[in-house]
């Protein structure tokens, strides 16, 4: 299984990778939404999950999510939004845009793993 971890913080990408690896994921890193789209368009096939930070430079997570959901090719890939902002309207905004789940920072490894497992179950993995 392959996951794209999109966060402008290398520290956060490393922390997240340490959680997803034991779950059986091979991780690819992206520093912003534009890099996520590039990875998808480059033909990185078999992407099973995208973990995407909201506040990123160049193209933020929500903008990238909107583009992914509009595309014919990638619209079915589960995208979990990760953000420091945990207000209800932000969560609703992400879910309305097609996010498969929402994780607030800071999170524990257990919380992140649980949200990922839930997304896997929904997809029937």
């Amino acid at each position, binding site marked *: 299984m392959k996951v794209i971890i999109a966060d402008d*913080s*290398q*520290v*956060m990408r*490393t*922390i997240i990778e*340490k959680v997803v690896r034991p779950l059986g994921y091979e991780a690819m890193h992206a520093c912003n939404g534009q890099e996520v789209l590039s990875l998808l368009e480059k033909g990185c096939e078999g992407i099973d999950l995208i973990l995407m930070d909201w*506040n990123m*430079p160049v193209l933020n997570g929500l903008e990238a999510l909107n583009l992914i959901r509009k595309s014919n090719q990638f619209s079915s890939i589960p995208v979990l939004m990760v*953000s*420091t*902002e*945990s*207000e*209800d309207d932000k969560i609703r905004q992400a879910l309305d845009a097609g996010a498969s789940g929402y994780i*607030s*920072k*800071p*999170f*524990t490894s257990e919380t992140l793993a649980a949200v990922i497992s839930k997304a896997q179950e929904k997809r029937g993995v």
Partner: protein
Amino acid sequence: MKPILLNDCSREVSLLLADLLDEKALLLNERFENHKRLDDYRMIVLETRSDQKRVLNQISKMRYACNFRNIPIIVMRGREDHFPVQHYIMAGATEVLSLTDPPAACRQILQGYLIPDRRPLDQEMEYLKPFIENTVSVIQTMTSGTAEFREMYFSNAFRIFGDISGIIGLSGDAEGTVVLTFYWALAWRIISKMMQVQEEAINAELIHDGVGELINMISGSTKKNFVGTHYHYELSLPTVVVGSGHQIGHPEGASIAILIFDMDNSSFAVHVCLKPMKGTS
């Protein structure tokens, strides 16, 4: 009453200060040792002779020993000292006076620095408490370590004496800045704990990155507490500044709350400058 440390001052300077300062002030003339904590002094006075570089080095060490407390460090320049004042200020001094300055002016300046920092009012605690709670929670969640809130005060001195600061601008119903300041060694330890790697595996770039992420999390998680209040804000992308004694600008007329936390035998500080904008509810 807390004493005033005269660091290895001459008899001339000691007598002058005794005359200038309140009679009740307790003056201790002794040599600063590097390991000594200076949290419990009201003021520190150093005298320069022809050894400016040594004094600069000492000011830096003293500033660290103040442990984020806003303790005035006063440099009393000898008559022959023509070293640029800015160098002392950059090293961490609060004020530079000279033996040739008019005594009345010196008295007024010194007495001004003896006025204690203001403590927060109850209504100010309304927006400070969430920052305290979320700082402790973010550090605990991300590092499995414990940060204990020690104290807070308000300061209009905009200088931050740490080695690395994460800064985030706030805008919207309330405007301002939140700053997270560490000494280098503690930042190093915290980021290695966050990443669950040995300290040797951490480099400066990761520390900058991690400190930026921590201030982002502290400001972001606190924001939720202010939904529906006039303290609600939007976040900018964080910036990280490295270097001792850097200065941060704040909106005019705003007070800056300095929150000090203890962790792993060191300290770190969160500076909160938050001002509700007029005309918002």
